[in-house]
């Protein structure tokens, strides 16, 4: 632990810290453009110059200089001030003065730092350099004249995303950032370079010229496009969500989010259900709430009533539905709408037990039936980190393009029982072995075999639990905690022949078996579920209601309401509360606070933000064998996995441009 002096203040810094980090520990602000905590050190912007003794009698780039014992660092000397002014002056030589028409304006590092550290006036009278725009796909807009060559985008795509596609061509003043032959950046995290770009060179294409940062209301929310539960910030203006940005949470998403989480928000204002609809003479017609409630009451469901939760609903909605059904005398609730029926008697067996931070430290990882890049792009980033530290990765399932070296063991699940010798050795030698079971494996009933694998290779030991199930529905873990599951899955519900079926935004399920039932869709988008419904009750999306979500590692997180739902749409719990009145039953809550309190009384873990404890892993039983081939992964099109994304013009464009013309989702009725 070297001791250094920063501006006369002596502090002790951790081994391996840089001078820049030492200054930050001492509470000094060091301006920087190229340095980023999560990327490698480039040292090419020179903005972080400080004076360091002992050393050469000139300012030094603090980001790339290790802090050593006895250093005297000055960040406030005249030399540092003029050095910063000089660097800033050079950076601005070729930077256009187009802040008034630049989307980065108001949240631009260069703007802020030139105010804080620049000279104030220009002495430059020659022509400025101009650089042609580069095409980088439907999400990233480029104005390369503004580029200051920090290479953060290059380092991000190489180091974090693992897809070498952005590079710096030519040299010196002519240096240009581009993709190879200006092809679109094609990975699920591509838009994070927009946040990384310290200037307005890479900005958001869908959000171009839409709003200024100071006009926006910022709401802390949780992403529901997958089960990672990325922490996001929704920026809204009036009743419209303008954009979603990542929040920093080192346990979950670090500071990245997937392109889908970022860009599906334009779908929040398209194809919305903003009126009550009822099917009359085979066609859905606008109706009133009263009419709809009367029709549901007229069906006299009694206890023949079921509720199926979709992938994006919050825990409160599910609890309210369960309470309603309970009051009616029914327990027919299910969240696994595609008909999966894995055992949920012990939630530890269906949880991502290693945690996302933990999986980084695994040294042998078996992925069974999961296209992780598409099912949880940010978990793939973690596994990539593990591989960089020397982990070996094996995959059972059809080939997909990993961003790290991985060995595919074929798509036959029976390989789990008879692993090749080198794989067995890798897991026997591993200190922190892990298995990740994906949806495709669960659908084939491989959960037992996974548990058996965990047992035979000692995946659970002191301070390490290597058994992981990776879900991709934001509602899944919350639903399972609330008991939204039948032993036989959806089949049990079908067998019970309910007279009324509530679909809580369930769009991926098969409505065919419920042909005789009154199908009530409580959701926000005119998607598959609404097409099949007899009655549509317009509800709120994740951005339009407070709610609790549990991610695939069992992390309870709370999202806030950013905007109001459009038209007649109401928050889901109020609809369910009104239905209780229509069905003449008591559910025991009249406000959101009461509902939440009741939910926490029943499942206390939902009341505490953070990891829920599920206890010990159950025994797998050595008899459990996995069989069958995984023909395909459940996600066919990364950009169109949920009703919001399917409604989003940006996601449709991504799907057709980047994935080669996936089918366009049908228009709403």
């Amino acid at each position, binding site marked *: 632990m070297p001791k250094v002096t920063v501006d006369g203040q002596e502090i002790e810094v951790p081994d391996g810290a840089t001078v820049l980090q030492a200054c930050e520990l001492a509470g000094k602000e060091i301006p920087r453009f190229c340095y980023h905590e999560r990327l490698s050190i480039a040292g090419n912007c020179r903005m972080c110059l400080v004076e360091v003794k002992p050393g050469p009698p000139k300012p030094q780039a603090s980001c790339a200089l290790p802090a050593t014992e006895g250093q005297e660092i000055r960040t406030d000397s005249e030399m540092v001030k003029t050095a910063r002014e000089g660097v800033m002056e050079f950076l601005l030589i070729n930077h256009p003065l187009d802040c008034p028409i630049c989307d980065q304006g108001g949240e631009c590092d260069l703007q802020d730092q030139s105010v804080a550290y620049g000279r104030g006036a220009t002495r430059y009278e020659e022509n400025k350099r101009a650089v042609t725009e580069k095409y980088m796909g439907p999400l990233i807009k480029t104005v390369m004249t503004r580029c200051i060559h920090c290479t953060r985008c290059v380092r991000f795509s190489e180091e974090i995303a693992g897809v*070498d*596609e*952005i*590079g*710096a*061509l*030519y*040299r*010196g*003043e*002519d240096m240009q950032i581009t*993709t*190879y*032959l200006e092809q679109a950046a094609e990975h699920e995290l591509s838009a994070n370079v927009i946040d990384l770009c310290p200037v307005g060179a890479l900005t958001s294409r869908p959000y171009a010229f839409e709003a200024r940062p100071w006009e926006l209301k910022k709401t802390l929310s949780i992403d529901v496009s997958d089960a990672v539960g990325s922490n996001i910030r929704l920026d809204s203006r009036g009743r419209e969500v303008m954009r979603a940005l990542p929040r920093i949470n080192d346990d979950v998403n670090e500071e990245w989010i997937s392109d889908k989480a970022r860009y599906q928000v334009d779908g929040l204002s398209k194809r919305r259900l903003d009126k009550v609809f009822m099917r009359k003479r085979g066609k859905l017609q606008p109706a009133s709430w009263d009419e709809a409630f009367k029709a549901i009451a007229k069906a006299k469901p009694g206890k023949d009533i079921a509720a199926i939760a979709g992938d994006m609903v919050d825990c409160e909605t599910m609890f309210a539905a369960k309470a309603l059904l309970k009051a009616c005398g029914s327990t027919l609730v299910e969240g696994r709408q595609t008909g999966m029926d894995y055992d949920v008697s012990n939630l530890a067996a269906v949880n991502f037990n290693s945690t996302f931070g933990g999986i980084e430290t695994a040294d042998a990882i078996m992925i069974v039936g999961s296209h992780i890049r598409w099912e949880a792009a940010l978990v793939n980033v973690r596994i990539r980190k593990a591989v960089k530290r020397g982990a070996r990765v094996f995959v059972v399932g059809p080939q997909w393009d990993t961003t790290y070296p991985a060995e595919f063991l074929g798509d036959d699940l029976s390989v789990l029982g008879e692993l090749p010798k080198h794989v067995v050795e890798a897991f026997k030698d591993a200190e922190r072995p892990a298995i990740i079971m994906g949806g495709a494996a669960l659908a084939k009933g491989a959960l037992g075999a996974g548990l058996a694998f965990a047992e035979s290779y000692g995946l659970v030991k002191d301070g390490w639990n290597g058994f992981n199930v990776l879900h991709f529905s934001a509602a899944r873990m919350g639903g399972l905690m609330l008991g939204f599951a039948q032993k036989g899955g959806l089949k049990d519900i079908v067998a019970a022949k309910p007279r009324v079926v509530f679909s809580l935004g369930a769009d991926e399920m098969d409505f065919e078996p419920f042909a005789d039932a009154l199908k009530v869709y409580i959701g926000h988008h005119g998607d598959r579920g609404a097409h099949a419904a007899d009655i549509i009750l317009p509800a709120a999306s994740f951005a339009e209601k407070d709610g609790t979500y549990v991610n695939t590692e069992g992390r309870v997180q709370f999202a806030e309401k950013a905007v109001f739902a459009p038209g007649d749409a109401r928050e889901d719990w109020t609809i369910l509360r009104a239905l209780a009145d229509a069905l003449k039953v008591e559910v025991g809550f009249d406000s959101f606070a009461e509902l939440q309190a009741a939910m926490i009384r029943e499942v206390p873990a939902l009341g505490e933000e953070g990891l829920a404890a599920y206890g010990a892993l159950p025994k797998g039983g050595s008899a459990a064998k996995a069989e069958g081939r995984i023909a395909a992964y459940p996600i066919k099109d990364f950009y169109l996995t949920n009703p919001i994304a399917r409604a989003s013009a940006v996601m449709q464009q991504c799907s057709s441009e980047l994935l080669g013309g996936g089918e366009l989702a049908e228009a709403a009725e």
Partner: protein
Amino acid sequence: MADRSPAPDTPELRERWGGFEFNESYRARADKAIARYPEGRQRSAVMPLLDLAQRQVGEETDTQGWLPLPVIEYVADYLDMPVIRVLEVATFYFMYNMKPVGKYHVQVCGTTPCMLRGSDGLFETCKKRGMKKGHVSEDGLWTLTEVECMGNCATAPMVQINDDNYEDLTPERLDAVLDALAKGEQPKTGTQEPGRHTSEPANALSSLPEMVDANHDYRKDW
């Protein structure tokens, strides 16, 4: 600075160069270059490989050679590295030609010492022969490029043609060199000054004369 952008990616380019592969002798040299680096560090050989590829293209087209995009992709594939990384290297260094060049690539140094010693005259000479900066002459023989310092300031002005340097030039001497090359002869490389061998002083020793016979400590003179 010269335009370093790669030649456009056209169907014709793909058709001509899409099937590019190292021939036997170049493959041997490429593998030898790769073998210089430890296992797992093969991409360090990207610069020699690009040079070899350029030379083979040169042999195939009877020019100095250049790097069409499919050839760059071939090198990337050969080293199993992302093509954008190879393109970064190729566009950075001037020894790689990104556009087709003539049989002789005349690189005239225009940096200060050469300019003071008359490089403007050399450009004139080249222009008189129909060379134009950045273009291949009509007979396919010449490409003229103005380059920055090539490190021959003691024998300025200089010109680099393909792999050889020609130094101590005057317009007449450059004419002679170019005439010989055009005839298919190999002119004397290096300095063109009669009586001079390399970059030794042209006349009497003018600096550090006391150092000729023995070491001399100049510090007391400062």
